[in-house]
């Protein structure tokens, strides 16, 4: 949709001639071209599968997350697991936890559930809030815009981690912890997405087709629904894909600090925290959650970058350059810039379009 809309906005006959059959399919085609993104996607799919099948996997191994195995650790040496690589054996595929002898494979696969559920839930919440408030600010009058923008600024500048720690400390223990983590992360970190949506809305508002819709008598919400939301899909999806790994890291960080899920529920951050002193005595225990976290976050980030590229209209135009569909553009084929000079000259690319990208880059480096 987005690409169509933007192509339509560009208005050239060439663009119409080369218009893709459907937006989603085109995005998929572009994604398919990026091996790194595909690999990232495959890793994500695998982790989701593991998380969903955690009980099954643990059952196949024949272990659970909470049973203690006092016989598998050397009590006199501080509880270090007996055997190599942290006590790896046929019945404990990834070894056992020092001190308790709990099965690490079962704890890791169950731990992935917490990481993914919390991260997905928080991201959905952030996107919902961000889009809603961004739209309201972009479409509202000056007062509403000012108010919402300042509130957004406050949330963007607020040290979310510190605030999350404070919030998590005061909520009573009875409240289900994963839901709480989801809410806290979701309610605190929606500022970035709201800013991007507002900026996009302001740009789109001045475009002809939106103006036409409004002149045609549509109210602001109808315009938002029919004309703006479809155009917002690209930046929002891109930003959400970047938020997700950062939410995984936040959950792990909070669990690391001891205010995430309560024991004995396993979570990667919590395991990493317990493991941090064991790096010399039982390095396998530290490496497992650390590597898993690293791979997951890397996979999501690479995939997010792929999605961003696939949705980026300027990349789209460059691709067309590459395939020689626009004769005029041939001259630019050698240039490394993503924006063709004539596109800028003709005002087809508004400076605002660059915002999602720079904003998201900031978000990545800033986290």
């Amino acid at each position, binding site marked *: 949709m987005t690409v169509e809309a933007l192509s339509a906005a560009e208005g050239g006959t060439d663009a119409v001639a080369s218009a893709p059959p459907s937006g989603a399919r085109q995005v998929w085609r572009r994604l398919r071209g990026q091996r790194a993104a595909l690999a990232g996607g495959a890793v994500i799919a695998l982790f989701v599968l593991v998380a969903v099948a955690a009980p099954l996997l643990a059952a196949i191994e024949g272990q659970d997350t909470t049973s*203690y195995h006092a016989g598998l650790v050397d009590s006199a040496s*501080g509880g270090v697991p007996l055997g190599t690589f942290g006590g790896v054996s046929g019945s404990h595929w990834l070894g056992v936890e020092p001190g308790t002898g709990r099965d690490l494979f079962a704890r890791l696969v169950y731990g992935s559930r917490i990481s993914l559920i919390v991260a997905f839930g928080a991201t959905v919440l952030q996107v919902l809030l961000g889009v809603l408030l961004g739209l309201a600010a972009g479409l509202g009058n000056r007062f509403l815009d000012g108010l919402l923008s300042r509130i957004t600024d406050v949330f963007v500048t607020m040290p979310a981690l510190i605030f999350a720690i404070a919030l998590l400390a005061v909520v009573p223990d009875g409240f289900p912890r994963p839901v709480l983590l989801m809410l806290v992360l979701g309610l605190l970190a929606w500022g970035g997405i709201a800013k991007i949506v507002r900026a996009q809305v302001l740009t789109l508002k001045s475009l002809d087709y939106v103006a036409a819709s409004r002149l045609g008598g549509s109210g602001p919400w109808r315009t938002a629904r029919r004309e703006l939301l479809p155009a917002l899909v690209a930046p929002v999806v891109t930003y959400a894909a970047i938020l997700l790994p950062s939410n995984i890291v936040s959950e792990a960080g909070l669990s690391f600090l001891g205010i995430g899920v309560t024991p004995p529920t396993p979570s990667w951050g919590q395991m990493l*925290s317990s493991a941090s002193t064991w790096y010399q005595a039982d390095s396998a225990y530290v490496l497992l959650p650390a590597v898993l976290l690293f791979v997951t976050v890397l996979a999501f980030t690479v995939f997010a970058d792929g999605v961003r590229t696939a949705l980026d209209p300027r990349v789209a135009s460059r691709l067309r350059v590459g395939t020689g569909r626009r004769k005029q553009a041939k001259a630019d084929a050698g240039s490394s810039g993503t924006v063709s000079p004539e596109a800028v000259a003709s005002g087809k690319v508004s400076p605002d379009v660059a915002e999602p990208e720079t904003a998201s880059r900031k978000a990545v480096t800033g986290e």
Partner: protein
Amino acid sequence: MRHLSFTSRRIGVIAVGLALAGGAVACGPKSGDDAKSGSDGKPKQGGTLYVLNNQAQEDFDPARLYTSGGGNVPSLVYRTLTTRNRADGAAGSKVVPDLATTTGEPSKDATVWTYHLKDGLKYEDGSPITTADIKYDIERSFAPELSGGAPYLRDWLEGAADYQGPYKDPKGLSAIETPDAKTIVFHLNKPEGEFPLLATQTSFAPVPKAKDTGTKYAAHPVSSGPYKVISNENNGEHIVLKRNPNWSAATDDQRKAYPDTIDVQSGLDQAVINQRLSAGVGKDADAVTTDTNLGPAELAKVTGDKNLAKRVGTGHFGYTDYIAFNPKVKPFDNIKVREAIAYAVNRTTVINAQGGSSLNEPATTFLPAQASFGYTPYDPFPAGKTGDPAKAKELLKEAGYPNGLTVSLTHDVTKGDEQGPEVATAVQEALKAAGITVKLDGQEHAAFSDKIHTLKTEPGFFLTGWGADWPSGGPFLGPIFDGRQIVDNGANFNNAQLDDASVNSEIDAINKITDLKAAAVRWGALDKKIGEQALTVPLWHPVYKRLFGKNIKNVVISDWTGVLDISQVAVK
């Protein structure tokens, strides 16, 4: 980042004063039988000993320090009427004379205690030490400006309950008489056979009135011990001590004082201390720590390295970690439920969660496993090393819970803490086998302490621990089981809120005994009698393992403190 401190367990010097942590080197270390000197040859005088610590030696004023046996660093500067015996193991839990000629001459009913000073005692400036100066320091310890010391004297001395210290009330305490410069007499309001053990605390050190500078005294105290304070930065963070030429070994058979200089650096991360001691580079070869234990992971590394293992001192401080019940909360009013939990607990997994069998010894008695406390082995609910869930189920059935029950266990969320989540989870898992579902109620460190020591909020089932101010049954059982020590407003340690006339009267009777050995036997019998009521489930007694530097000689670790004694250590 408190959770990081679990690399090495902090010495749990809970004792009566939770305040200990900062002020006291109180619980010193002691040396185990296997911990001998790091290098060969006889210890010689000279050199500089470095002490690497986590907790600062705050408020270095003898009136403010809350110590056990006079403390470790404080005892280098302040001599007291009596002191702990500087010897390895059980011999080290004896009380011996220091400034005084004896450990005290009691009146018949142990309410009047008389001490005479040795001859030739001098301060660092060469002036003589008198009993009036000891009386003066005790009076100072009552001054609100100099808070922090142990509360015993206010409770024990006749007519001292409302005394406000010598600055507001220069008349002084009438309960302490000094008929001449070498004699001091204490009049108590009740029999206290353990008075000689109290007289080891630094409030019994001499402070010359003419040199008293009030709250500033801590910076430059007048030394009566083998070392004098050269500098004291940031309220005890860095203290440098040098030999006091006016101290004479002839009047002090306890302190060896081998090094010429002792440099105490605090505020270090516990992992850093252990790393530096194990590497032993440069000055760190001449270093020890008095407050940082080896953690489980560090122990795993050390046991695999022969050279390091030689440099580990093992000590036993009298301490018990246990599950406490509040019988005012259902279902713990039912003794069968409490017994069921006592049977179901698996001490092996609990101990493994807390660092394994080298750092903890399983406990079935409330008193620590040392003769000086009156240790009498007993196990009213024998369940073996791993618990007896079948027996527990049986008891639950008798209690009216044939289908098991759900309870809430309150614990500290601090990782690696003795009352931390690892231990709570191990208890939870063990009780699951007996059909008891345990919900974990984790509380932040300070909130946890407040909650369990406040009568109104005290939960029914929680983890806690207890150590005593001196190695005897009195300060161990009294605050926990004496009905008259239930505190309505403020910190209450009688968790079970037990107020049993027979227990109270036995405590009074034992306090009259001045023969500490005879008293110990009675304390042991009382412990056994209380143990049968299943008001607590003793879990383990901690063992302290601490590294010392390559050049360290003459490591002495008494059962009184559990840490190596700085006054005995040599670096040459």
